[in-house]
């Protein structure tokens, strides 16, 4: 499943890198500890978090993550947006909290780890 299909299905807002949504998603990872994401996420994962600090972009890049989903309508800092555009990392946004959106992706799309 591509990032684009997930965006359409759940009506995510695309905050950055709209030209990078044609990427295959391997699964999902939900965590707000960036050290944990660096250690345990897998390439191609869609990452669900409420952290908006610019370091999330570097972590997504480092782990080759497909996209970042910011929950609870969190607004990223200007630096984070700039960095996401520069690094071509899709930043997505949803009004759902992490538990709910993880459940939706897991059940409705069969996205696992």
């Amino acid at each position, binding site marked *: 499943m591509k990032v684009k299909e997930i965006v359409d299905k759940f009506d995510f807002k695309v905050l950055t890198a709209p030209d990078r949504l044609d990427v295959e998603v391997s699964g999902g990872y939900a965590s707000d*500890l960036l050290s944990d994401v660096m250690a345990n996420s897998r390439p191609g994962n869609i990452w669900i978090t409420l952290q908006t600090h610019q370091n999330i972009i570097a972590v997504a890049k480092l782990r080759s993550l497909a996209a970042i989903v910011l929950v609870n309508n969190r607004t990223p800092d200007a630096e984070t947006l700039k960095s996401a555009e520069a690094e071509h990392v899709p930043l997505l946004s949803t009004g759902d909290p992490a538990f709910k959106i993880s459940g939706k992706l897991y059940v409705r799309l069969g996205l696992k780890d």
Partner: protein
Amino acid sequence: MSPRGIIRTASEKEIDILGICDHNSAENVPAMRDAAKPFQIWVLAGMEVTSQEEVHVLGLFDSLDSALGLQEIVYAHLPGENDEDAFGVQPVVNEDGEILRFNEKLLIGATTLALEEVVSLIRSHGGLAIASHIDREGFSVIGQLGFIPEGLPLDALETSPAIPVETARQKFGSRLPLTPASDAHRLEEIGRASTSFWLAEGTVAEIRKALARQDGRMIMNEETI
């Protein structure tokens, strides 16, 4: 932990300088300074500020007014009220440990200030900004944010008693000075880790020089003793 108890313990452990860093508050610093008067112990006014990313940063000041100036901004960005059943009471005391009032802010909570703002506020108030217990997973800059953001103007990195300073240096590099500290929350934890400085007096101004290795001031670590 009454102020006199803390000072007595510090004196027994031959500690000359104490940084008093309650979470998001500096209201107990005056009592600590009063309790320290009969002793040769310097009390630095401090605070452990929680950023919105839940990163802990220590601010250390010579002037109480500077610490209270930062506290005012921290309080304005610290939502919530303390729940004494869940988090315990938060007394503000005098040097004898008598309760003057209870702090009703949710001091255990996170401010809405970004890490960069916290560091910048500490520095603009004349303080040293030190990243707390960087070897721990929870509430440390590396745990929460994976690595230290480039260009973040920290003065030093605090290591906890859980890691020997040499191990910490191998792990975290030598770009910033490492300052081991006890992170003491109880009397018996005071002095379980510490940093030795070569200074003219126990002030933040002198420690700043030591961190920058200026005017002969320095951190007295294993190599230099």
